[in-house]
């Protein structure tokens, strides 16, 4: 079960710091010499390249 964070944008950084252990390690992703199975979801396209997703 994922614990919910606070909702106020102004406190996001502080909340994230307090809950940092809930996030997977950035160091593991960036610096591990072992295979990393996580990836980055690119959600910054308009949908056009995905072939008319809104049709």
């Amino acid at each position, binding site marked *: 079960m*994922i614990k*919910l*964070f606070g*909702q106020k*944008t102004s406190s*996001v*950084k502080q*909340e*994230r710091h307090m*809950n940092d252990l*809930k*996030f*997977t390690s*950035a160091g593991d*992703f*960036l*610096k591990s*010499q*072992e*295979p*990393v*199975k*996580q*990836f*980055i*979801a*690119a*959600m*910054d*396209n*308009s*949908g056009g*390249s*995905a*072939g*008319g*997703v*809104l*049709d």
Partner: protein
Amino acid sequence: MERIHEFRLRMMSAPEFISDNIFGAILYKDSVERGAVDVLDKKCIRSIIKIDEGCEPDGTLKPFDIDGMIQYTLDHGCYGTKMRSVVKSESIMVPIVKQQMMYAEKIAAAGLVPIIEPEVPIDHPFKEKIESDLSIYLESRLTKFQGDCILKVTPPEKPGLYDYFTKLKNVKVVFLSGGYSTKEACKRLSRNSGVSASFSRALSEGLKYPQSDKEFNDLIDSNIRKIVLASG
């Protein structure tokens, strides 16, 4: 814009869209304004903002307020930034990388992780040559880079081309899908060790707005599992 935002929220809500599979998600500023960072925070997935304003006809970045976007990224508790350029010719490759690195140094100095993306079009007639030149020039620049960064590149014609960067402690290499199908993007990814994905097209392949939640979730979960399997 409402529908595309709803579409993205459905993607983020899928059962397999979790931090075990997804390290971070790249968002438009519009998605940030609509509360996407909070949605991702609840899933312990890092938010990364696309900060550029698109490309000039030659593929370099259009002018944008880099200082303002750095501050915006910090204010919204995001992990990093992304800027995409398009390497349309060999002659524009060096100016593109210089521009990306100039901005990346400012971003890293602010404590953020920049994604630098000098994309080589997948159908470029000289793709392999440009990729080879790009990797050589990037090596000369990234070796000296202070701070962490993520290098987002087109899956190369020559497997292992970016191996050098996977050994650097401050650089993570990820591949874009760039118009390749999920199957082709994953095949190319699996041929390169130490590399992860940063897919858009290949992540959303087959998804349609009118699909039922089950159809939608089954498809994106399947895409996520394929990408995870091919990563690393």
